[in-house]
């Protein structure tokens, strides 16, 4: 018996090694190019990930000598591995974020290739959208989206229960109480990752400070002093909201997928997330009666705050760049430019219900857009001002790590607001 088992095991192993051997001996022609793309979009069948994959497929079809290998991880894992890569050599084309917390150290180390700005004159980038990707007047990456933070809500659920979209923050908290009484989660929050709550905090802060937002944030970060009253008030409001049960039970440990699924399965009435999730409206994994009823509103105004209803939290965050030490840099830049041809990222993105690109999209309006998409477009078009980068992405990465972890503790009450502000200040020094 024993001998048989051993023999079978050996045979299996030999078979596998043969398989492995044949896999490794593919001979490549000289002009074959392999491009490695490292992406933060693991879902290749929906939304932004689908768009990216479509462009990659198009490119490989048009350039048969090019093979594109994609490695995709979700955002948290992506950022960790990106940093590991930036120490020792990158894949050729990578996703990046045009924000100091992500980009500063990376650019200092010179791991991203400089791009020729003149190439992009006719690409229709929205003015100011490239700023986050520049350093000393040189361009290192291109923005993919214009991101808007908002409250997705289930319109049918709202109508059935006679709930109204809140216009003030107090109304939002009152509404949360009513929703909770029906045994439904008011707002699904991805608190496990830390960054969505930091965006939420920035959103509140922007409503408090209005146009002073970026001054308040950059002052605090450069001095390490977060005692500004608006910062304090914003944090208190966040804690108050958590205490009032605005978020689901256990929000501070639940990840992106869990929060989103609460909403897309009708367990939660609202979901706080960026406009990149507008493609939910077309995602067939989501039950039809829910996905066709998803609508969005932006942060309501706060009593005594300077921000108005049309001052919205929006920024140009995610984008792409090319690795400086890529062995196939020419091909990589060619592919990058291909992605940004106006009829690729912008058009495909639009058609697949992914929020807004950072380029002029008006040419691709078909009239078939989902209502959700149009709501975002209107929000941006009617905006009197936009916030710019969320607070957690404005400082060095040590600050980002600190605020995204401490924000969980302050919202759930395990540290005080003052301790929170002191702790994140400490991380800036």
């Amino acid at each position, binding site marked *: 018996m024993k001998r048989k088992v051993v023999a079978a095991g050996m045979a299996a192993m030999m078979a596998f090694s043969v398989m492995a051997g044949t896999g490794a001996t593919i001979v490549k022609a000289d002009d074959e190019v392999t491009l490695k793309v490292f992406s933060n979009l693991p879902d290749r069948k929906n939304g932004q990930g689908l768009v990216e994959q479509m462009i990659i497929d198009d490119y490989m079809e048009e350039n048969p000598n090019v093979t594109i290998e994609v490695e995709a991880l979700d955002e948290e*894992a992506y950022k960790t591995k990106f940093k590991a890569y930036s120490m*020792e050599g990158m894949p050729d084309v990578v996703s990046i974020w045009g924000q100091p917390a992500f980009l500063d150290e990376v650019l200092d180390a010179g791991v991203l290739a400089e791009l020729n700005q003149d190439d992009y004159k006719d690409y229709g980038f929205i003015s100011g959208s490239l700023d986050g990707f520049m350093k000393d007047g040189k361009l290192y990456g291109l923005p993919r989206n214009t991101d808007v933070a908002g409250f997705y809500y289930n319109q049918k659920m709202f109508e059935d229960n006679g709930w109204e979209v809140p216009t003030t923050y107090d109304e939002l908290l009152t509404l949360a109480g009513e929703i909770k009484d029906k045994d439904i989660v008011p707002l699904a929050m991805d608190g496990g990752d830390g960054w969505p709550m930091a965006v939420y905090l920035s959103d509140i802060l922007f409503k408090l400070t209005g146009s002073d937002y970026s001054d308040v944030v950059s002052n605090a970060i450069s001095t390490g002093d977060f005692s500004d009253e608006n910062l304090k008030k914003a944090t208190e409001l966040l804690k108050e909201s958590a205490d009032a049960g605005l978020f689901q039970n256990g929000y501070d440990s639940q990840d992106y997928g869990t929060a989103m699924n609460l909403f897309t399965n009708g367990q939660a009435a609202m979901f706080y997330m960026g406009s990149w999730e507008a493609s939910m409206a077309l995602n067939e994994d989501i039950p039809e009666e829910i996905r066709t009823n998803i609508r969005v509103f932006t942060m309501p105004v706060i009593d005594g705050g300077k921000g108005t209803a049309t001052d919205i939290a929006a920024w140009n965050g995610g984008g792409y760049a090319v690795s400086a030490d890529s062995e196939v840099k020419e091909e990589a830049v060619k592919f990058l430019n291909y992605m940004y041809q106006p009829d690729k990222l912008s058009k495909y993105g639009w058609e697949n219900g992914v929020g807004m690109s950072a380029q002029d999209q008006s040419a691709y309006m078909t009239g078939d857009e989902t209502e959700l998409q149009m709501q975002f477009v209107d929000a941006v078009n009617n905006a009197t001002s936009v916030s710019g980068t969320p607070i957690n992405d404005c400082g060095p990465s040590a600050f980002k790590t600190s605020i995204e972890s401490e924000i969980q503790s302050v919202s759930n009450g395990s540290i005080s607001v003052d301790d929170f502000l002191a702790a994140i200040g400490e991380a800036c020094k």
Partner: protein
Amino acid sequence: MELAGKKKKSKAGKIVLWVVLIAVAVIQIFPLVWLVDFSLASSTEMFTSGLLIIPQKIQWGNYVKAFVDGHFLLYLKNSILINGLAVVLVILVSIMTAFACRRMQWKLSGLVKTLLLMGMMIPIHATLLPNYKIYSQLGLTDTIWALLIPYVAFSLPQGLFLMTSFLESIPVELEEAAVMDGCGIYRIIFQIITPMLKSSIATVAIMTFLNNWNEFMMASTYLSSQKWKTLPFSVLEFTGQYSSNYAVQFAVMALTAAPAVIVYILLNKHITKGAAMGAVKG
């Protein structure tokens, strides 16, 4: 009378025994039953307050998606290959080293053995950062070596420890006879000693397998392309890929767990024996 009472008591005792054992078994197994149950349902059925459900329609499609999009066969092949090689190397190196340290006569034998056994005390994850630097400098990241080297290195101390203690139980006289016949050291090791170490080889193989089969921290740090990714990756990749479809996530979890569980159930007597021997000695 007294005898009857005792019998009754022991019968009641037996029942208590069974109740306790079954309760523990349920605790150990129910989460897995739950996993399989919901992997056959559709995603929306997850949100029930019932413990188990009868799916409205059994969704075999979940498994098809898990199998195809989870690169199940590729990752399984990689897992088997890497772990198989690691096992073979650990056995080979540990027999050689054990023999040299235990039987051969040289001054530093004790020191070398202690040095190698020290590896058992080093937390493997403390080497993640420096090893990442070393492997990328040498161009070993994203190759099979990036996993094979640490897997073998960190299983070697245990293998060596077990091999030396088993080696002690083999009488030296056998070797003396072989030397008389004119055998060289290598032949003694591989033709005479190795066959006698059969059961300890099995133990070392099982321990090495159990140590490394489920490892993913190093795999996720050192690997980037699909080429060498191991089975636990299916799960990691899937939670991103199918973030809005829980049922498929459950299917991929069940599928990933399946090979090890099936092999274990089939060979459970040998494995528990081997593992127990390794654990008690180690």
